[in-house]
């Protein structure tokens, strides 16, 4: 199977005063197309930094990262923006919808930056909302929607330009447990339809829904488990 994400010896360090903080200590990870991977770890484990690196929101200090066959190391800001636009659909804990825009306008946003014409954009956005059961809510502002509904709109936005990768950062973190389960089911469904999904969480129960669980601690992968099929395989991280 084709690999979607290839991380090779990724490090990330910050300087705070005199102190050199190493958040990621040489992460190597390959994620295959159509897989559903949960990255789990306690706070301070570096999972957010890893997620920002995978999402091309932040650049690593060293190491190489290839996304869907595109090497990202030497890319300009604009190149990275284009790659985020075309290849990554983000689902955030706080939804991150623009409050001034209606639901359908929020879904249209990535398509505006992709240069898709107005009519086609609007139709596509409507289809996406319908797919997520939000077809009737297109003209509501985010503040007029419940948390679960807002997250559905955000998912519709993430799917709008058929990304290669869906990156979900604690997608159920701001939702009650019932709505959280619904959203999780939705994400599983998207995976069954062939979407590659990387989910970041601190919650083992949520991670159990994924096909593969990567555990991070202190900036290193300490466990990499495949939940499916039933036989659980434990591999050692490629390099520590």
């Amino acid at each position, binding site marked *: 199977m084709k690999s979607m994400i290839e991380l090779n010896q990724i490090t990330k360090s910050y300087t705070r005063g005199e102190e050199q903080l190493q958040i990621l200590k040489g992460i190597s990870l390959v994620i295959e197309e159509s897989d559903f991977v949960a990255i789990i770890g306690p706070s301070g484990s570096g999972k957010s930094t890893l997620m920002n690196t995978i999402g091309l929101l932040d650049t690593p200090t060293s190491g190489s990262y290839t996304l869907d066959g595109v090497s990202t190391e030497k890319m300009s800001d604009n190149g990275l*923006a*284009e790659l985020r636009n075309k290849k990554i659909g983000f689902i955030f804990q706080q939804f991150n919808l*623009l409050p001034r825009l209606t639901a359908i306008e929020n879904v249209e946003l990535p398509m505006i930056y992709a240069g898709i014409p107005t009519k086609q954009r609007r139709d596509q956005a409507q289809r996406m909302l319908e797919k997520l059961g939000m077809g009737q809510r297109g003209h509501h502002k985010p503040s007029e929607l419940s948390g679960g509904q807002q997250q559905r709109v955000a998912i519709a936005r993430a799917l709008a330009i058929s990304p290669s990768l869906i990156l979900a950062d604690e997608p159920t973190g701001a939702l009650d447990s019932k709505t959280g389960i619904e959203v999780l089911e939705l994400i599983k469904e998207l995976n069954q339809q062939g979407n590659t999904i990387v989910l970041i969480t601190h919650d083992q129960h949520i991670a159990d829904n994924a096909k593969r669980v990567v555990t991070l601690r202190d900036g290193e992968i300490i466990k990499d488990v495949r939940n499916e099929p039933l036989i659980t395989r434990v591999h050692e991280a490629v390099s520590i």
Partner: protein
Amino acid sequence: MRIWELFQMAIATVRSNPLRTILTMLGVIIGVSSVITLVSIGQGTSKSIEKQYEGLGTNLLTVNLLGNGRATQLNYDELMQLESTPGISAIAPTMTRNSTNVKYEHTEETYNVIGTNDRYLDLQKGKMADGRFLAEADLDFRNHVAVIGSDVAKEFFGTEDPLNEELNVNGYMYTIIGVLQSKGSNTSGTSLDSAVIVPLPTMTRDFKLGSIRTAYVEAASGNDVNRVQTILEAYLANKFKSTTGYNIFNSSELISARQTASSTLTNQLVAVAAISLLVGGIGIMNIMLVTVSERTREIGIRKSIGAKRRNILLQFLVEATLISGMGGLIGLILGVALSLLWPYINPSQETSLSLNVGLYAFLFSALVGVIFGLYPANKASKLKPIDALRFD
């Protein structure tokens, strides 16, 4: 991303905070409207100056004889001899007595009485409404005839015909032979409309006046004006053995001197107004900087879903330009309205609107938005997506 989409986006943002938008625009509105109003007042003044002097014609020279003692006097015949000088087409020696009692039947008023010759009417670009102007024979025979201005005719006769009526001017009876068309005030501020014009020799005798103080000299063409002025100066200097005791005004010199004075004043006022436009621009920059930091999270979201630096830069730039452009447009409308209303507020002041100035003021205001929006927009576009997303 098309420019229209950027505008729609900017309109939505600007509409979401109308009070702030209007306050931000205020500086530009005041700047643009005052530039337009001040320029139109300035141009109005300059036009009214032109109109005042138009009555004289640009070929006209005014010779003032100060008449200090016998040495600097010229009599009527001496002046008229100059008419044969090449380049001179006509001369009208003139004496004026202001605020003279004029009586018709039982009505008494004070008017300016002008003593002159038959050339005067053409030189002053006057026209007859009724009857005739003074003729050479009236001067030769010292006839007691008078030509009256339109205001005089209205005052004494109303709708009646003034011709052949007898007017008592300073105790002497004059027969009215003509009425002038209304013309408005001339250079010296005195109006022919409220003047009584009589033959110069008749006036000298009746009023027991001394020497002639003023002579209007018309050059044959605009090209002759300077040459005639030189000839007259040389003649007078030779005659009086002095370069004092007289002066000669050239009407086009007078016009340009007054025009220069008025346009200098206008330019200074416009400069002050332009400074207020600049201050308006700084206001826009200030608000845009506030907006950028308020909307850091929005910028982060937009960047995370694929907005490039250019997209963010243009978004904020279009917003700033929209605010200043709308301010400019409102200022334009306000300025035009003020210019049109100004003459009603201040009747002595004409205004003259100019399309160019309105257009420049509007374009300049839009430019102010671009220039002062550039820094905040650039700041927004440079934000790192991760830093912007983390911002609360």
